[in-house]
Structures are given as C-alpha cells and as structure tokens.
C-alpha cells in the first residue's frame, strides 16, 4: 500500500507535479459522450483531510467527474490520481482506497442492514476478525446499530442514506466520495446527515469529496469548486468566494423588466439580469442604495429584496445565472439524462 505524502499549507502543488499528490489530483480530465462534452478538461487538487465540494447545477458534470475518479467511467482525456494512484492504470488500487456513496440508493432492499454491510465487507476483503467491530463502529456513528436486523426496504430515505454512508466507511477508505449525499431528503434529514458527516471528520482521518447543488451545504466544505457546463469556473474557500463578490444582491419585481434593466444601466451604471423571474443585480451597501433607487428609477416597482452575499451570488457573478435557473434549463436536463443513461 503506497504511503501518503501529505502536503499542506503553502504547498502550491501543480496538479500533475511529479507524482506528489494529496488525496486527489486531477489534470485536464475530460469526458465526451459522442457529441456531448460532459466534462471539459478540469484541473484541481484536494488535500488530505480536506472536505472538498463540487457545486453546480444538475448536468454540470459533477457526477461524471466522480464516476471517473471512482474508476466507473474511463476519461476521454486527461489524468487523475486518487489516494496516490492513477485512475486508469491502477484501478484496483484506487478502488481499495475509496468509499463511494452514490446519488441513487445502491442498497439491496431485500436484505437486512447488517447483511448489506457484510456483503460489502466480504467484497472488499475486510479481515473476518475486524468485520463485527468495524460494522458496529460505523453503524453506531450513523445511529443505526439498533436497527441492524431490519430489512432495508423498511428504512426511510434518510436512514438508507445514513446506512450507505456507513457502508462507504466500512473498509476505512482514505477518500470518501459522496455524490449528492442529501438530494431528495427533507431539510431536517439533510441537516442530520450533515451532522453525521461533520462528526465523521472528527472520528476518522479521511478526505471527503462531495457534490451538491444546495448552496447552503457548500458552506460546510473547506473549499469548493463551482462547476458549470463541464468546467470549473472558480475554486476557493466559501469565505473567500463570498468576499470576492462583496456586493449585496438586490432583486426587483417590476412591471416592465427590460425597461428597468435599461434604466439601471443608464442611471446607475449597473448591469442587471433576469434571474428567477426578477431583475437581479449586485450593489455595495444595498440598504443605502434602495432610497436612491425608488427616487430615481422612474419605473413602477412591485417589490424589492436585498440579500447579503451568498454562494448563490458567487454562482451568479461567475455564470450570469442563478443555480436554480441553471437547473431548470432544458439543455442541462438533456445533458443529465444523457450522462445518466451512459453511466448505467
């Protein structure tokens, strides 16, 4: 088993630098499905012990990237090292060192929770004498030890998710991949899943790589990469990203949005766009701007909201659209369906 060369802090490691790598290092990774380029040459590096998030709308190429890093899909071009092993040349080495929680449930509902985990332990060759103890440990971590004899089909969505996270940890992977760990769950369950994930960070030495399209969840990450249309648009800590935007977001409900946009440009020199059906723009010190807006705009306004910068605004400022609008665009749906079909 190869030893990890831990690089921290000032390490300005170029992703492809001479075999030295953190938990994950990726360079020029590309995946093409026929005409469609799902992932268009991404580069990034994830440090050991980091929680790294991929943020972007559905169809941005997040799942395809994860599938490539987990050796389920071969890249069209580019390369990547996961836990120090090449994802194409050392598939088995990679697989032995990663845990993967898929976007859709991959449990056998006709088996009990314990049977599911036992099958996994055997597939990964977890030594027999360790199975019981390790199983208890990971199941207690997600609060399911008492339910180990229940059929998985009788579990709620949140319990299944937790069991999958426990299963992903069973063989002590060095990198845990979570593909949309909370998608389709209600807000309460989502926050409980997150408290398990954060607790996990204190108990296991592990790097977590996750994807999400919930902005608020990206805040939990040490660093995030915003992905859109197969490319990484920006990568930094959530704080730094928000600081970069620095502006408050103002949204106006107007009778005649195009006229308002034109007026904003003309009178205040602001570039506004229509997002979520409202005229949207960023401005420093939003509260103080509003009185001027009402006085000088000269167009009827039905409503106004001002919000402090969030990751939504980061997304907006880099892509010119909010993540929700990006989600609903037809093009992305097609991409996602295609990517899912191909990955089956």
């Amino acid at each position, binding site marked *: *088993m190869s030893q990890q060369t*831990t690089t*921290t*802090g*000032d*390490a*300005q490691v170029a992703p492809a630098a001479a075999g030295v790598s953190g938990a994950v290092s990726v360079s020029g990774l590309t995946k093409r*499905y026929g005409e469609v380029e799902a992932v268009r*040459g*991404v*580069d990034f590096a*994830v*440090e*050991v*012990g*980091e929680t790294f998030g991929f943020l972007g709308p559905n169809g941005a190429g997040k799942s395809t990237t994860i599938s490539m890093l*987990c*050796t*389920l*899909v*071969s890249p069209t071009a580019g390369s990547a090292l996961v836990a120090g092993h090449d994802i194409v040349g050392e598939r*088995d080495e990679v*697989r*032995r*060192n990663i845990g993967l929680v898929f976007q*859709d*449930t*991959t*449990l*056998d509902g*006709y*088996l009990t929770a314990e049977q599911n985990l036992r*099958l*996994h332990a*055997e*597939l*990964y*060759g977890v030594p027999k004498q360790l199975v019981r103890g*390790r199983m208890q*440990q990971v199941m207690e971590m997600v609060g399911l030890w008492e339910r180990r004899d229940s059929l998985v089909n009788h579990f709620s969505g949140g319990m299944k998710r937790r069991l999958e996270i426990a*299963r992903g940890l*069973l*063989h*002590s992977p060095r990198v845990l991949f979570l593909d949309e760990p909370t998608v389709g769950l209600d807000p309460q369950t989502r926050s409980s899943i997150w408290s398990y994930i954060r607790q996990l*960070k*204190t*108990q*296991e030495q592990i790097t977590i790589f996750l994807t999400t399209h919930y902005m608020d969840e990206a805040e939990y990450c*040490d*660093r995030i*990469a915003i992905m859109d249309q197969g*490319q*990484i*648009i*920006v*990568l*930094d*800590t959530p704080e*730094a990203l928000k600081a970069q935007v620095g502006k408050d977001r103002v949204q106006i409900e107007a009778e005649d949005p195009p006229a308002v946009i034109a007026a904003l440009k003309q009178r205040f020199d602001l570039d506004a766009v229509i997002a979520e059906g409202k005229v949207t723009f960023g401005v420093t010190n939003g509260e103080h701007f509003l009185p001027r807006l009402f006085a000088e705009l000269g167009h009827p306004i039905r409503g106004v909201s001002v919000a402090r910068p969030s990751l939504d605004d980061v997304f907006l400022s880099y892509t010119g659209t909010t993540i929700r609008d990006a989600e609903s665009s037809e093009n992305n749906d097609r991409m996602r369906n295609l990517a899912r079909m*191909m990955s089956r």
Partner: protein
Amino acid sequence: MATRAGAPSELAPAGAVPAVPEVAGVRVPARSARGELRAIKVVWKRELIRFSHDRLRILTALMQPFLFLFVLGTGLSRIASAGTHGVSLRTFVYPGVLCMAVMFTAMFSAASLVWDREFGFLREMMVAPVRRSSLVLGKCLGGATVAGFQGVIVLVLAGLVGIPYAIPLLLEICVLMVMLAFTITAFGVMVAARVTQIQSFMALMQMAIMPMFFLSGALFPVIGLPLWLSILNRLDPLTYAVDPMRRAIFNHLHVSAVARHDLVPGVTWFGWHVPGALEAAVVGLLGSVMLGVAIFQFSKTD
C-alpha cells in the same frame, strides 16, 4: 471560459486531531485469487439469501410444472394412449417440464441483474476492488444453484408420475439440470448486460424460452418430424438437455423395445446418434461461451 481553479488554500485543515478509533482501521488487502473467490461467493450467497426470502417465487415457479404434468398430461393421455405403448404421457413429458421449471427460475435469477442495475446495487458491486468476471461468474453460479434447487423440488414429484427414485438416475438428472440452469442464467446475464428495462428483459426472455421449450421435444418424440421442425429441433439447445434426461429416465423404466424406439429415439445428427455425454457437453459449452460473452460485456466501461 478560462478555468480559474485556485491553488490549494492554506485553510485546508490537514486532519483536525482525529480521535483514536476504537477499532483498528481496516486495510483492504491487495487483489488475490482468494479475494476473487470470496467475491464469487458473495454474489452467489446473495442470490441464495434472496431466493430463500422469496417463498412466493418458489411456489409460483411450481405452478407451471403442475399444470403441464397433471392437467395437460392427464387430459391428453386418453387420445395419446394409442401412441405411447402403455407409458404414461405424464412420465413422457416429465423431463421437459422439469427443464422448464429450471429454465424459468434461472431466467428470474438473471432478471434480478436488471433490477440491480435499475436500483443501483450492481454499481455498488462494480466499484469494489474485484474483477467483473468474478461478479458475473458468481451470478451465474448463484442462478444455477437456485434453479437447481427449484428443480429438486420438482424432482420430488417424480414418484407421482411413475419414475423410480433411483440414486444414480436422480444424480444424473441433477447434473443435467444444474448444467442447463447455468447455461440459461449465463444466457440471461448476457442479455441483461444490454437491456436496461425489466419489461423488455422479460419480454425478450419469454420470446426465447417459449420457442426453446416447444421446439426441444419436451412434449413430443424427436422422430419422424417434418424437415423444418427437425432442423429447428437440432438447433435448440434445450433439446440436448431434455433428450439425455429422458433417456436416463427410460433406462430405469420397464418398457418394451418398441416403446423405447418410438418415444426415446435419441437425437441424431445426419443419421448419427449423438451420445448423451456429448449432448451434455453441448449444453455446457454453450453456457461457457455465453458466460464469456457476458463477462466481456460487463468488463467494458464507458
């Protein structure tokens, strides 16, 4: 758009003093032949666990053999009696019916692969550090085992249709049965590699299995057939499972030479009598080829 992926920030917390785990971390061992055997066993065992949970499936799979043996067999026996030389029609169709029960169970076993794909369990297995071939082989062995088990249940009925419970006979039938089960599972797995929807899979399998059953001579002796039918019969793999089974059964019955000649003429290739061992080999070979194709298909990645 230019990628502005920043350099790793100094905020990356390299392990916030991890608590000492109570259980030593697991080390996943390197790939080995033992590991592959274990993977085969895991997939095989899961097949068995699921089969044992599904009592309804065991019962419903008995339905068809019952209908064929006791309803059709009894109903037709009066008009057929002239040609059977005193042998009960039920005894005659028994090997065919047994094969059918085995085939359907094997087919359902392979069908669960399509479920696994649809509901994701297959992906969980595919990302494990084991060969795809081990997974496919485990699946085929699992299907062969549960289908063989279903066959044994039908075999218990043999006495009711006048077949003696002679150990050598039962063993011979079991071997043929398991080989057939393996081949059909391999066939199903091969198809399942390409088909993503359970409905299409079932339709395809029905389309394959019903003609196989009717062409195989499960319900009639393979002698004096019109040319087109005898050609199709010789091409049908099931022919090579039903015929040796029926010959084995008749070897343990006290019947006249005429009856033997008319009812179990044996399969011929251009007039040459194909020996039972070769027939079994045909079934086994076909299964191995299909297993190979299935492994190839599952080993491909996008």
